[in-house]
């Protein structure tokens, strides 16, 4: 069972507050972390490997420092980390990213299973997982909350829906995107940390994965950002005071429209 896990390095938003005056995120000193959903994808891959043998390869596309998350992935049990990094990838939208990851996955060989987080917490698009499946011509299911069974070339999963869940069976190779309900990720062991320290992270360029120039980066992206702006700040804020009863009365008066 050879498993590929796609991982994105994202800005950590923990402890960051919105500035109520400007309604912007205070970004200073914001560190980078492994996208939380990808952490669950990696954990699931390592668990499957522990049960069925095989390898876990962690793949990321990003700037050179994204190497850190791949090292971290090794500390949590990935066998190797591969970074696709090239300035020519800059400005890639989800289409160009799916293409690039698809070319990278092909250049790495055959995988039985590809796991991705449901979405990245910076872009929130949830498009790259399905896009990658499409590039690799693999069946896929998104928002998987449980891998129930695996064997005989099939995988049985529960996928979260808006009104409950579906039990879905699909043939391997396949791609799954996962939600955080799927597992509780482990903390890295001392041994894992040592392994991560020594790991050699393979770096692949656009040329290495034979990516065609017209499909990568900004030029390869069907969507283009026209403008970026800060949303309008929220309106007036009122903090009530007095006894619970007095405060509740004030609120009920103002919320009348809702009753």
């Amino acid at each position, binding site marked *: 069972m050879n498993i590929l896990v796609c991982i994105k390095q994202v*800005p950590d*938003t923990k402890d960051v*507050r*919105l500035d*109520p005056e400007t309604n*912007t995120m205070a*970004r200073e000193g914001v560190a980078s972390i492994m996208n939380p959903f990808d952490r669950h994808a990696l954990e699931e891959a390592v668990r499957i490997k522990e049960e069925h043998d095989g390898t876990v390869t962690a793949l990321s596309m990003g*700037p*050179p*420092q994204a190497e850190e998350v791949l090292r971290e992935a090794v500390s949590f049990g990935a066998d190797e980390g591969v970074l696709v990094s090239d*300035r020519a990838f800059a*400005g890639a939208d*989800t*289409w160009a990213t799916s293409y690039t990851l698809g070319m990278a996955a092909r250049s790495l060989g055959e995988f039985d299973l590809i796991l991705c987080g449901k979405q990245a917490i910076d*872009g*929130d*698009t*949830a*498009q790259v*997982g*399905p896009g990658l499946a499409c590039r690799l011509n693999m*069946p896929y*299911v998104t*928002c998987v909350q449980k891998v129930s069974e695996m064997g005989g070339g099939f995988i049985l999963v529960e996928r*979260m*829906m*808006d*009104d*409950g869940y*579906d*039990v879905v*069976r699909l043939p391997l190779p396949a791609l799954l995107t996962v939600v955080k309900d799927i597992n509780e990720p482990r903390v890295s062991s001392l041994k894992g940390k040592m392994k991560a320290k020594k790991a050699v992270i393979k770096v692949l360029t656009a040329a290495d994965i034979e990516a065609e120039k*017209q499909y990568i980066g900004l030029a390869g*992206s*069907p969507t*283009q*950002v*026209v*403008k*970026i*702006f*800060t*949303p309008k700040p*929220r309106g*007036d*804020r*009122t903090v*009530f*005071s007095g006894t*619970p*009863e007095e*405060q*509740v*009365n004030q*609120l009920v008066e*103002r*919320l*009348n429209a*809702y*009753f």
Partner: protein
Amino acid sequence: MLIVDCEKCIGCGVCEEDCAFGAITVEEGCAVVNENCTLCGSCVDTCEPEALRIEGADRIVRADLDEWSGVWVFAEFRHGNIAPVAYELLGIGRQLADQRDVPLSAVIFGAGVEEQVGSLIASGADKVYFADGPELEQFREDVYGHVLEELIREFKPEVVLAGATAIGRSFIPQVANVLNTGLTADCTQLSIRREDGMLLQTRPAFGGNIMATIECPHSRPQMATVRPKVMKPAQPDPDRQGEMIRYVPSEQSLTSKVEVLESVRSELDNVNIQEVEILISGGRGLDSEKGFELIRELADELGGAVAASRAAVDAGWISYPHQVGQTGKTVCPKLYIACGISGAIQHAVGMQSAKTIVAINKDENAPICDIATYSLIGDLFDIVPLLTSKIRESRG
């Protein structure tokens, strides 16, 4: 490439502060770009001396744009019901179609959907393409994707909209991918640029701290998923006339590798928190699963649903589908009452676009009070039951 003109650059550092990716530093009086640059262009807009520009993007024209015409809306149908977001899409779709002076069409798949067509026409569709059959009863990415792709290739709409629901977010990316066209996720605003008829798609990024307007200049269709509860639903007119078009997909499109063995609907609080107008949400301050009973009573009184912060879900007091925030759902109700939720940014990004936010918290310095329209300071175990009974009273 982002090009810096050092002749023009005054080293003011505005771009350095503005860059969300830490990709610019000012060195020796001139901006220097590093490999973190994503070419988002926000620095170009803020640079007063106009020292920055983006170059080298040889745009590829992928489609003959004039061949594509009409606005399409995907109407999601599951377990016998059309998703409410479909009517919201028809509302915005009608506006876009009128501005472009083209027809608005709805597309619906499922088993027994023929009788649903009327409600889509009443809500503004000029045409409804429906594919009816047992193969389409359960949602499967490959089948839904292939059938929609086939329809789009045949009829060539310029715009395709779908709800940013579990189903829409799952199969629409596949369709955009095979059609080699752009898709913008989770849009909250859509408009037509008058000069060239281009669809402008605005969506929150970085958890809603930044808004980005996106276009799809060289390929068609222009595709977007739209958040539920953001657009106004169309006013139905039962007398409206429209055209019903039965579409019979190719056998190949209906062949699936995926098998849905069972479709389980959650029994407790069986509501999708993204589709309701009033949400009562509980956090760590509820102390236990029992605390949620108070929340549920208030929700029942208001005809709303129960939501939760990550802390409450992680503690096992309520299930994950109720979680609001960065690793949960993004909601946009008319009224959001946060009880015992501190409102860290991970939570705020999931609910800050609610129309009215009420915070019930013992700490008035909690971040939730920075974004709440009204804050009540005190013990929620006193306040929430009082609020429930006051509302009951005020209704008589």
